């Protein structure tokens, strides 16, 4: 599990077309552990896409990662991920498959969604929810945006950590 201020694990994961992605030393990299079946992930989804659009011209990289065991949640299969991508539901955000769940485990991800923001050196600077209320679109991913604004201005995010809220990650049986 990665703590705030620690170097986050490097990784490479395939998107729905098999292309590898990972943190690329962008000014900030946003990792969103998410999925297809969870109402919390779906409720916050458009706000994640809006962040990706709004911060793209400042070089912020956003990666969506689905770590759920598809044998437990068939809607989280690569086929369903591909269908969403082809339907345009991910916008320009790569949708990555963490089939072995090793990335989710190494970051200590707990829920979908669960957000981790890395700086250009790969240090974890923010972890938690996008904002305080999945049911209120006006929140507009305020916590995540605040963290990004701080990092891009050379400041420390405050808060640097909030409780992730959502569905528990569906781990493979041991």
């Amino acid at each position: 599990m990665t703590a705030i201020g620690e170097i986050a694990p490097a990784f490479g994961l395939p998107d729905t077309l098999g292309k590898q992605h990972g943190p690329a030393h962008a000014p900030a990299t946003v990792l969103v552990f998410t999925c297809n079946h969870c109402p919390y992930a779906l409720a916050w989804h458009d706000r994640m896409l809006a962040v990706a659009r709004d911060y793209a011209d400042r070089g912020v990289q956003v990666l969506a990662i689905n770590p759920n065991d598809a044998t437990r949640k068939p809607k989280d299969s690569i086929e369903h991920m591909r269908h969403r991508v082809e339907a345009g539901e991910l916008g320009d955000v790569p949708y990555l498959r963490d089939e072995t769940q090793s990335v989710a485990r190494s970051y200590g991800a707990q829920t979908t969604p669960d957000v981790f923001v890395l700086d250009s050196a790969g240090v974890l600077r923010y972890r938690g929810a996008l904002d305080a209320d999945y049911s209120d679109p006006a929140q507009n991913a305020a916590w995540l945006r605040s963290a990004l604004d701080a990092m891009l201005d050379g400041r420390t995010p405050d808060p640097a950590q909030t409780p992730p809220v959502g569905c528990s990650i569906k781990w493979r049986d041991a």
Partner: protein
Amino acid sequence: MRVELLFWDGCPSYPRACAELEAAMAALGLDPAAIVVTEVQTDEAAHAAGFIGSPTIRIDGEDVQPTPEPAGLTCRVYRLRDGRFSPTPDPADLHDALSQAMKGPDNDRNRRDRTSLRTP
């Protein structure tokens, strides 16, 4: 009228669903203490109860937002009236379902008939 709230502890939506159901009942003069709460703890119990996700709310045995999902321990996806996704039903749907049930068995039967028409 029998109002049931079934939930799975692995999904964090239960407190909000319970609060919104209690508020809807109170607004209609019904006793929120009458809600029959059931925790579903295993996949076997989910299948036995026809539990398709947490929370599930039934009024006189009918789901407030019927949907053809398989039974199992999961968080349930609802659609609010404005089209947004939500872990809990639209409070207006709760209000309407309770109001309909309060009108009596004839109206309740009509509600079932409409539901069956929507589900081939």
